[in-house]
């Protein structure tokens, strides 16, 4: 639909994320216990671990929804631990949610537009008139989203459909689209392929790789689908009981005995082949 299509949008450079000694506590329960995590610019880093290992807690602490007990979160070396969640969006930190967090009453297009909210400036009076600057801003936003996001993720057939009626896989994709509209420098994906079938999973994996390659964005993801993690990640970090038990390349992690033990419940049988296969997370 859009007349011109440029493949590689010009974007701010990918960000580096450093998490040090991060601890989080709910009541008496330690959800995170001093974890370290280093995400290289332009990499795809996966955070894995059995259920209850603290992956989502770590995500929530990094995106600012939980205030950590100790530790620091640094974006490109700048400490953002005290920055409120909504302001991290402006710094280039975007995320998706484990249970899809789209705005159900809106269309796909409006959901994606919302991703850019923090970057727009028009105010309430402009909104009433919808004239001049506001109109211009909205038009530019529309054109950019069409070009960079909708075409890119092939969502043009559903742009005016309310998200509530979309199938699960597409909703996940719309959430990714909304995160992309935020012009992220680091994209945090919480279980991007959970509940998807093989075909949808591959589609999403390809989209993630494309995002990294064409947008030059750093990607940090939490995922249970081991096959997909091993396929696309540059770096894998493994959590168990709120502690980091391993980190390294997919191959290194795959052969790490602690990881195998964590996943197989210490049965003593190092069936590491299992780690090559499909979803592992449900084992633990």
């Amino acid at each position, binding site marked *: 639909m859009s007349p011109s299509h440029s493949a590689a949008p010009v974007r701010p450079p990918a960000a580096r994320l450093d998490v040090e000694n991060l601890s989080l506590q709910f009541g008496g329960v330690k959800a995170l216990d001093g974890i370290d995590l280093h995400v290289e610019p332009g990499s795809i880093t996966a955070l894995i671990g059995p259920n209850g290992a603290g992956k989502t807690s770590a995500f929530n602490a990094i995106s600012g929804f939980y205030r950590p007990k100790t530790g620091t979160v640094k974006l490109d070396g700048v400490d953002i631990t005290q920055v409120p969640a909504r302001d991290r969006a402006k710094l280039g930190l975007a995320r998706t949610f484990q249970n899809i*967090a789209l705005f159900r009453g809106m269309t796909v297009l409006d959901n994606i537009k919302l991703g850019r909210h923090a970057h727009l400036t028009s105010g309430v009076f402009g909104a009433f008139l919808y004239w001049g600057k506001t109109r211009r801003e909205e038009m530019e936003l529309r054109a950019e989203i069409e070009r960079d996001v909708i075409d890119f993720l092939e969502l043009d057939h559903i742009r005016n459909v309310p998200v509530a009626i979309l199938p699960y896989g597409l909703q996940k994709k719309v959430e990714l689209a909304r995160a992309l509209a935020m012009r992220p420098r680091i994209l945090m994906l919480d279980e991007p392929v959970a509940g998807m079938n093989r075909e949808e999973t591959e589609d999403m994996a390809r989209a993630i790789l494309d995002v990294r390659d064409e947008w030059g964005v750093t990607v940090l993801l939490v995922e249970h689908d081991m096959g997909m993690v091993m396929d696309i990640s540059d770096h894998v970090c493994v959590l168990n009981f709120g502690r980091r038990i391993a980190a390294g390349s997919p191959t290194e992690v795959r052969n790490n005995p602690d990881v195998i033990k964590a996943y197989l419940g210490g049965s003593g049988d190092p069936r590491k082949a299992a780690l090559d296969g499909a979803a592992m997370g449900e084992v633990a």
Partner: protein
Amino acid sequence: MAVEFIDIVETSLAGIGTGSLMALTGVAFVIIYKATKVINLAIGEMLMIGAFVFYGFSAGLSLPIWASVPLTLAVAAVIGGLIERTMIRPLLKDNPVSVFMVTIGLTSVLIGVVELVWSAEPRRLPEFLPSQPVLFGEVFIPSKTAYSFVIAAAAMAVLITVFSFWRGGIALRATATDRAAASSVGIDVPGVFSFSWMLAAVVAALAGILVGSVGGISSAMGLFGLSVFVVVIVGGLDSILGALIAGLFIGWLEAMVGRFMGGEFKLLATFTILLVVLVVRPYGLFGTHEIERL
């Protein structure tokens, strides 16, 4: 004019008497909230319809009190159950705002029904409470205040016993804590919903009979519900203990304000308290603080 100590004592006791009726109505509200998580804006109107049904039996049909009261409570239970089945249940899965607005619609319907059947004219209930006043030395307590306090206190004692020991009460508490878990141990959760609305309607009707016997009944008496909101917000929406304590407190406060500042300040005082509590302690004095989830 000088404020005499005995004035304060008398006003306080009268206020606590009214407060006990607020507390009782507050408990009806809490029962519904605990079981179904519905904020029932129509609680004052449920009280009103109870009072009018009682009027129908005792004045309209001239039945004796010992027959009118149980009949009223039975009718109230039916009304409560009907409301739950027809208006609340279909929306329970929706967002809480919809159900809340349904109860707003319910206020309008109940007022309309009462005015249709009994007209908007104020009426008096037949006298059934003893009329000689209660005197503690110099301190004078109007008889209706004293006796309605005794009845309200007894009703609440029964309710608390029921909640603590009877199976149905325990099922209600279990449902309040965790619907899924309650269901998995064999509790009939929809049954608990119906039961809670029926029980609340019965309690509200009892409060209505008492409130009506003290000050007469009219289609505007649902305004009593306004003070009850303040009670449950201050006490905590899901706390029976909170409703008790806050009820007595708000009743006392309104009486004191009315006595020493003037009746026009009563609502102002209670609603100011409400705002302060909302801002300082949004979950009330004894309410459960619900943890926000993503």
